[in-house]
């Protein structure tokens, strides 16, 4: 953030490259969704991995976090980190509750 300021203009190629990546990942995620006989949990893992990947490059390149100061990193990270905390602690209850009727994953 500090130093060379926000008015730093990035080359168009950065954006085009990012766009192509996003498109490629979009295709990948749709295709992955149609692969037959993928166990349900694996499908979720694949889909989420690709989604995280896409989100990361949007944040890094379109939102310029890669080129920004520490503070932007901190804020960008904080939101997702806190979300993880919420997910982790809430799930901690659900998965360790022996009496909770959970159907689990088929196959």
């Amino acid at each position, binding site marked *: *953030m*500090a130093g060379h*300021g*926000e*008015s*730093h*203009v*990035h080359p*168009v190629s950065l*954006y*085009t490259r*990012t*766009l192509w990546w*996003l*498109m490629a990942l*979009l295709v990948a*995620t*749709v295709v*992955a*969704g*149609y692969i037959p006989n993928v166990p*349900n949990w694996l*499908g*979720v893992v694949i*889909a*989420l991995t*690709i*989604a995280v990947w*896409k*989100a990361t490059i*949007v*944040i890094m*390149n*379109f*939102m310029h976090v890669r080129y*920004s*100061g520490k*503070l*932007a990193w901190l*804020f*960008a990270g*904080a*939101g*997702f980190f*806190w*979300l993880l905390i*919420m*997910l982790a602690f*809430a*799930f901690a209850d*659900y998965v360790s509750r022996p009496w909770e009727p*959970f*159907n*689990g*994953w*088929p*196959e």
Partner: protein
Amino acid sequence: MSVQELQKTATLEHTADGHHHSDGILGEQFETLEQQNTSYLIGMWAFIVQEVLFFGAIFTAYAIYRFKYVLEFTLAHHELSVPIGTLNTFVLLFSSYTMARAVRAAMQNRHKKQAFYLFLTFLFAGVFMVNKYFEYSAKFEHHLFPGGDYSAHAVVEHAQKMGELREVEENGQKFYELGKTRDGQFTAFKRVTPQEFEQRTRLFFGFYFVMTGLHGLHVLIGMIIIGILIGRALIDHAKNKPVADFMPVEMTGLYWHLVDIVWIFLFPLLYLIGR
């Protein structure tokens, strides 16, 4: 730092940005444009943090139910159209790109180019909303909106056709078996009453409408802001303004990318998994 040094840097900052003041860009509470711009950026990021947790809470709830009712949700997933979803993702990703280009043009003070890219972004957002409109209407038509006349009928019918649901009757009681047909052989994973099935798919569509609805609202708000920015860019162009404040565009850009990111997660979680 000594007092003298501090005073020196302070006056330096002051003169360095002197010319900006005449443009009226610098807010009264700020000392320098650099300070103002980074403030706005950090402020926008703080807002984004807020948004992440706002959506995050529903994502958490959704994750827990999707885990709990995986089969029912899977069948309900099938009612969402992947082509429309893919198209919308495509449109939104592309709009993120045009938005980034608009921000770039704004930084270069190329007002016309900026207006052009903003207009493209607006257009894509419009396409997204029109798609959403058709998608929503279809759901309403099939009584898949969890209001008064909700019915899982469409889900059941579809799933039966796909060979993933079987209606069985025993002791005069109807129920559904959820499973898969492979090589003409139906294997049941789970058996539910129609009433349960209705509830759980309804839960799915509840999530679907709440999540996409809130997201759609964000798109709509974004469109309004982008519309205003287009107007401002055109005025700047007409006035031949050499330097304009690019922060509004930059911040709208950040917001728009966030809306995109939310969709990046919604799309697989609602449309894709469970195919």
